[in-house]
């Protein structure tokens, strides 16, 4: 079971990384072109999120209908349903950073394989930003299986 879980995670990571690389999500210049709605807008990346949702929406229905995942005892779904200030403010701050550079967390981590100093610098400061938030909010490491583990996904 444990080795199967690790293997499943590896396969998911490879598929996700391939999707980011092939679609162009890993290329900040292309992402900026997608966000540049008032300039020379390149709408092609809309198909990445649209295409992903075409798969993910029915896939989640399927998994939720089964009650539990194939390789785990239970699902860890977000428990918070409130539209609160941290959600809005955090998303806005993320939007500024995303618009400045064109990298969001997944593609930035995937792009580390290029070894470019600019990519490594971005990811280092991104991790620092995460640590800064943990420090300011007094967040403690979440123990596996604790109720807090069911917060939103990254």
């Amino acid at each position, binding site marked *: 079971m444990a080795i199967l879980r690790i293997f499943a995670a590896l396969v998911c990571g490879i598929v996700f990384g391939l999707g980011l*690389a092939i679609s162009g999500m890993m290329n900040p210049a292309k992402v*900026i072109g997608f966000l540049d709605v008032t300039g020379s807008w390149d709408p092609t990346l809309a198909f990445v999120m649209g295409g992903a949702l075409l798969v993910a929406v029915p896939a989640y229905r399927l998994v939720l209908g089964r009650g539990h995942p194939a390789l785990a005892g239970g699902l860890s779904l977000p428990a918070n349903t409130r539209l609160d200030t941290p959600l809005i403010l955090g998303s806005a701050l*993320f939007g500024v950073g995303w618009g*400045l550079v064109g990298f969001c967390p997944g593609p930035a981590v995937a792009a580390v394989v290029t070894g470019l100093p600019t990519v490594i610098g*971005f990811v280092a400061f*991104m991790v620092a930003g995460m640590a800064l938030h943990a420090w300011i909010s007094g967040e403690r490491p979440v123990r596996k299986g604790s109720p807090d583990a069911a917060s939103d996904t990254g």
Partner: protein
Amino acid sequence: MAGGPAPVNILASPPAILIGGLLVGFGTRMGSGCTSGHGLCGLALLSWRSVVATAVFFGVAMVTVFLTGHVF
């Protein structure tokens, strides 16, 4: 694809890259998710929090690109 590695072309200046990194890391933790977490997983789960978060970070990112590319 033309073959070879996927292009990774960053247009931002080094200070903007580092400030952007800090904001992306801090913001995604504070907002409990990013493009993948809210935009894909959250929307696929039909979560209202994710609908709002996705609208906010897309909107703010578009305004940021407008300001940095066409105003300043």
